[in-house]
C-alpha cells in the first residue's frame, strides 16, 4: 500500500473512532448503555475493509454481486454503524440515535431495517455458520464475491462456532475470510483467565484452515493479510487480528472494564471523571488525526 493510501486510511480509522465515541455518547444519553472497547479496537480492520478491500455499493446495498460482511459479535456494532454511515449508507447524524427508542440503530444489529446490515446478530457464535450459508449459496449461483465474517475471541467459547469451523475446513470453502478480533477481553475479565483458547492458531490449522496472525491495529498488515487470503483458493482463511481494546483512547486501552460500557456513564478508576470522558476521548482522537495529517511523507 502506498503512503498516501495508508495516510488516508489512518485518517478514516480515526474518523470512525470519532463517530464511535459520538454514537456511544448518544447511546449513553438515550439508554445509559453501550460497548466501547471492541469497536475502538476494530476500527482499523473495519476501515481497511470498508474503504479499501470490500466490493460494495452504498447506493445499491442489495447488489447481488457485493461482497458480504457478516458481523458475528454483534455487540461491537458501533464500529459497523460508524463504518456504514461514513461509507454513505445513511447520514452520520443518525449515529446519535444508537440504542435509543424507535431507532434503526438497534442495540445489536438487525437485518432489514438499516441498509448495509447483512445479518441480525448479538447471541454469540452464530455468524460463521451464516457466512458459510451465504458462501454455499454463492457457489450454487456461480458467483465469486467474497464473504467476510468478523468474529471475536470470547465467542470462540461457544460450541456452534467450532461446528462451523469444522464444516468450512472439511468442505474446503474458499472466498470465506474470517477476521477474529483477538483482544483478550470479555465481560468477566481477560479471555486467557476466563476460558483460555490457546493454542488458537493450531486449533484452526488442525481444522484445515489457513491461519494468519497479525497486529490488528496495523492497517498495512491487515491489508496484506486480506490480499493473501483472497489469493488462497483451496481452503478457508482466518486472520487472527491481535487488537488493542479501546485503541486510540488512552484511558480505555487494554482494559476489559470498557467492554460493555459507554464513555460518560460512570466514574472509573484510571479514567477522567465521567463528565470529562467523552471530551477527553474525542480530544485524543483528534490529536492523533492531526499527527497523521502533519506527518511528512
Amino acid at each position: 500500500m502506498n503512503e498516501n493510501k495508508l495516510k488516508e486510511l489512518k485518517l478514516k480509522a480515526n474518523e470512525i473512532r470519532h463517530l464511535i465515541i459520538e454514537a456511544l455518547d448518544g447511546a449513553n444519553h438515550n439508554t445509559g448503555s453501550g460497548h466501547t472497547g471492541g469497536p475502538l479496537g476494530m476500527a482499523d480492520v473495519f476501515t481497511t475493509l470498508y474503504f479499501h478491500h470490500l466490493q460494495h455499493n452504498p447506493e445499491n446495498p442489495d447488489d447481488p454481486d457485493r461482497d458480504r460482511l457478516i458481523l458475528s459479535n454483534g455487540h461491537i456494532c458501533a464500529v459497523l454503524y460508524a463504518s456504514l454511515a461514513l461509507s454513505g449508507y445513511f447520514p452520520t447524524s443518525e449515529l446519535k440515535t444508537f440504542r435509543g427508542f424507535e431507532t434503526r440503530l438497534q442495540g445489536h444489529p438487525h437485518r432489514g431495517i438499516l441498509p448495509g446490515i447483512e445479518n441480525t446478530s448479538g447471541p454469540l457464535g452464530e455468524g460463521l455458520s451464516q457466512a458459510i450459508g451465504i458462501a454455499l449459496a454463492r457457489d450454487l449461483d456461480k458467483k465469486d464475491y467474497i464473504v467476510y465474517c468478523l468474529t471475536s475471541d470470547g465467542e470462540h467459547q461457544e460450541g456452534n462456532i467450532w461446528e462451523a469451523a469444522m464444516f468450512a475446513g472439511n468442505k474446503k470453502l474458499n472466498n470465506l475470510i474470517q477476521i477474529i478480533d483477538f483482544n483478550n477481553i470479555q465481560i468477566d475479565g481477560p479471555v486467557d483467565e476466563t476460558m483460555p483458547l490457546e493454542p488458537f492458531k493450531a486449533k484452526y490449522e488442525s481444522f484445515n484452515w489457513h491461519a494468519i496472525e497479525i497486529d490488528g491495529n496495523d492497517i498495512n498488515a491487515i491489508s496484506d493479510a486480506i490480499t493473501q487470503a483472497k489469493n488462497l483458493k483451496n481452503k478457508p482463511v482466518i486472520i487472527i487480528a491481535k487488537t488493542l481494546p479501546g485503541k486510540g483512547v488512552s484511558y480505555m486501552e487494554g482494559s476489559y472494564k470498557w467492554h460493555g460500557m459507554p464513555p460518560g456513564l460512570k466514574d472509573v478508576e484510571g479514567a477522567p471523571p465521567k463528565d470529562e470522558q467523552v471530551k477527553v476521548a474525542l480530544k485524543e482522537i483528534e490529536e492523533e488525526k492531526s499527527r497523521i495529517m502533519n506527518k511528512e511523507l
Partner: protein
Amino acid sequence: MLNPNLNLNTKLFDTDVEKKPTRAGFGTGLVALGKEDPNVVALSADLTESTQVHLFAEKFPERFFQVGVAEQNMAAIAAGLGVTGKTAFISSYATFSPGKNWETIRTTIVYNKSNVKIAGHHSGIMTGPDGATHQATEDIATTRCWPDIEIYVPCDAIEAEKATIASGKTKNPVYLRYSRDKTPLITTSKTPFTPGRMQEFWQGNNPQVTIFAMGYMVYYALVAASELEKEGVNVQVINASTIKPIDIEGILNFTRQTGAVVTVEDHQITGGLGSAIAETLARTTPLPISFIGLQDTFAETGTPAQLLKKYKMDVPAIKNAVREVVRRKN
C-alpha cells in the same frame, strides 16, 4: 359422518386402512418442490434417511448439505442460504431442531427473516420405543411464541406432502411437524389443503362438541366421533393442520354451533394446540374446554398404542373428554 365435500379416505375405518408415516410425505413433497424450484436446498444433521431427506439428496446432490451432528450449525448455515435467494429446509428430530437449536433459529432465521423451513420429525409420544428423550412434546409451544413464523402439522402422509410443498411457496419461516410411525391415510390427493384454514372432517347432526385435533391424532378423534355417533352423541371433528397463523374465523364459526370444545394433540397440553384454541376463544366467547394431550409429564419407552392408553390420549380418553365437557356445558 366424514365430510363428503373433502374427498376423504372412505376406507378410513376399515381394519386394513392404508398407513404411512407423515415423514414420507415430507420426503416426496421436498422432491416435488425441488423439481419445481431450483432454489430449494436441504440440510441434514446425520438423520438423512430417517427424516426422508435422502430422496432429495439422491435427486439433487449439489443442493443437499450434510452438516454432521450439529443442529445449531445447520440452522445458522440455512439462515445464510435463506437470505441469499435460497429456500432452505433443515431436517432433524424435533427435540434437536427446533429443540437444541431454539435460540439459533430465533435469532438467525425468525428475527433475521430468513427463508428457512424447519422440518421437525419424530414428534410426540408416537415416537414410542426411542423414549422421552426423542419424543418431541414441547415443539409447538416453543415455536408458536415466535412472531412471523407459520406452523403446519399435517394429519397424514398425503397432507404432509401438500404442507411441505405449500411451505416452499411462502418466504416466511415455517415449522413443519412430522411423525415417525405409520398412521392411517385420512385424506386423498383430492382433499384440499390451504395453509391457515382448519377443515371440518367429521360432521355431526346438531353436534354438541367441537373436537379440534392436530396431526395423526385426527384419526383417533375421527374414530371417537364415529363411535360416539353410534352411542347417540354427535360431535364435529376439525383438522387443525395449521397452528399458526391460527384460523380465528374457523374456530369461532365451528364452535358457534356447539358451545363446547375438546382439543386433541400428541404434545404437552401446555402451549400447544389446546392453548392456541383456548387463547382464541377466551378473547370473545369463553367455552368449556377439555384438553387431551400429555398432562405435564414426560412419557417413556413403549409402543404408540401402549403409550396413548397409559397417558390417556387414546379413543376411550377422547370419548370421556367429550362426555365430560358436555356435562360442564349443561
